[in-house]
Each structure stands twice: as C-alpha cells, then as structure tokens.
C-alpha cells in the first residue's frame, strides 16, 4: 500500500521533470509561428488599406475590424478552435483571439436562449477584458490629466 503510493509519487515526479521543458519549447514554437503569421497578415492588410489612402488611425480601426470579423467567421466555421488547439497562445494573444472568445461561447451557449445564452455568455472572457481594460484606462487617464 505504502510502497505503491510511493511509486506513484515517484512516477508523478518523473513525469513532472521529463515533460515540461520539451512541451514548453514546442508549444512556444507553435505559438511563435502561428501568432507571428497572424501579425504578418495584419501588416499585409494594413499596408493594403493604407495604400488606398486612409489615415493612420482609420487604417488601424479597419484592420482590427477585418481581423476580428474574420476570426468570428472562422469560429462559426469551427476552424479557429482547431487552429487554437494546435497553436495555443499563438491564437489567444492576437486580437483575433478576442473575437474568438466572444463568438465561441455565444455559439456554445446558444441553447440557453438568445438573451441569457448568446447575449450574456459572449462576454464570459470579453467581459473581464473590457472591465479591466476600462478601469486601467480611467486610471491612466486620471494620472495623465494631473501630470500633463
């Protein structure tokens, strides 16, 4: 009894020692290439929109809109989550991950109704982002107001 438990513990420790380093490296490489590719795609779109004669700020909004809309579409087609399974943070950290975090739970909780399902659950992850983003922006704004 005691012996088997000790063995179990030893095994768990061995797994803990053996796996993380290589998985972290592999996961990081995947995240690097997929995340980098999404940003490069963003830059391509940016260059194109800018060449149409839009101002810098407008261009930024248009690019974000295109990326976000594409990610929502890919989420509806069940493609985004497949890529996300492979690339981890590579699809979570770009702004497309924010769109996915809105669309995916909206789809997932559809059965709970259009109001409390789709309407409420789409903010499961986006809600906290907006809350903490807004609070931080107010603090930044206050500091800027008094220090400028």
């Amino acid at each position: 009894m005691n012996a088997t438990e000790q063995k179990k513990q030893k095994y768990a420790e061995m797994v803990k020692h053996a796996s993380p380093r290589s998985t972290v490296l592999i996961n990081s490489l995947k995240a690097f290439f997929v995340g980098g590719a999404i940003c490069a795609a963003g830059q391509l779109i940016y260059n194109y929109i800018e060449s149409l004669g839009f101002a810098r700020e407008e261009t930024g909004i248009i690019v974000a809109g295109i990326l976000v809309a594409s990610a929502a579409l890919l989420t509806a087609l069940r493609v985004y989550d497949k890529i996300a399974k492979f690339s981890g943070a590579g699809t979570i950290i770009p702004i497309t991950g924010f769109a996915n975090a809105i669309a995916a739970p909206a789809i997932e909780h559809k059965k709970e109704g259009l109001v409390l399902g789709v309407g409420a659950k789409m903010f499961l992850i986006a809600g906290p982002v907006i809350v903490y983003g807004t609070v931080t922006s107010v603090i930044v704004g206050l500091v800027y107001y008094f220090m400028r």
Partner: protein
Amino acid sequence: MEGLFLAFLVGGLICVIGQVLIDLTKLTPARIVVLFVVVGCILGGLGLYERLVEFAGAGATVPILGFGNLLARGVKQAVDERGLIGVITGGFTAMAGGVTVAVVFGFLAALVSSPGMKE
C-alpha cells in the same frame, strides 16, 4: 518586406511570452489576456508602447497588448481634447470599433452556427 518580417518576429515573440505563462504558471488563458490588456494599457500610458508600434507595426498592434495601448492612446487623446470628461470617455471610444465588430459578428456567428455542428 522588412515591415512584414518585423511584424512576424515581434508578434510571434509576444505570443511566446503568453505561451510560456500558460505552460509554466497556473494562470488561465483568460487571466493572461486580461493581464496583457492591463500591461498594454500601462505601457501605453507611459508612452512606451508607441515605440514598439513604430518599430514593429502590426506586430505590436495585433497582439492584445496593443488593445490595451489603444485604450491608453484613446484616453490620453480624449483628456487633451475634453479634460476630465475625456477620462471617462476615452477608453470606451477607443475600443468601440473593435468591440462592436466582435459583438456583431459574434452574434451572427451564434445565429448561423450551432454547438456540435459538423463542418
């Protein structure tokens, strides 16, 4: 061409930071995204993030750190224009475009797609 490469490199590296945090800490992806937005907003408030944007373009604006920076840029601009009122309008105004597109398309996605639907 160089711009594309820099966007790829810097954007990829920012994602690696997120991945390492996921793998080596107990932080959930949701917490990391929130953390990135807050950090981006603070770096933006200090005027540091704009330098990365100048250097890496979409490599800095596309990661969610850039979303935080956008909030900071928006609130500073609003304070310049409207004073204290800008403190409470700047952040939301800056994120309006991205959030509206995400909400509208997320809503449409939920209308046309169902959980467990085969592709």
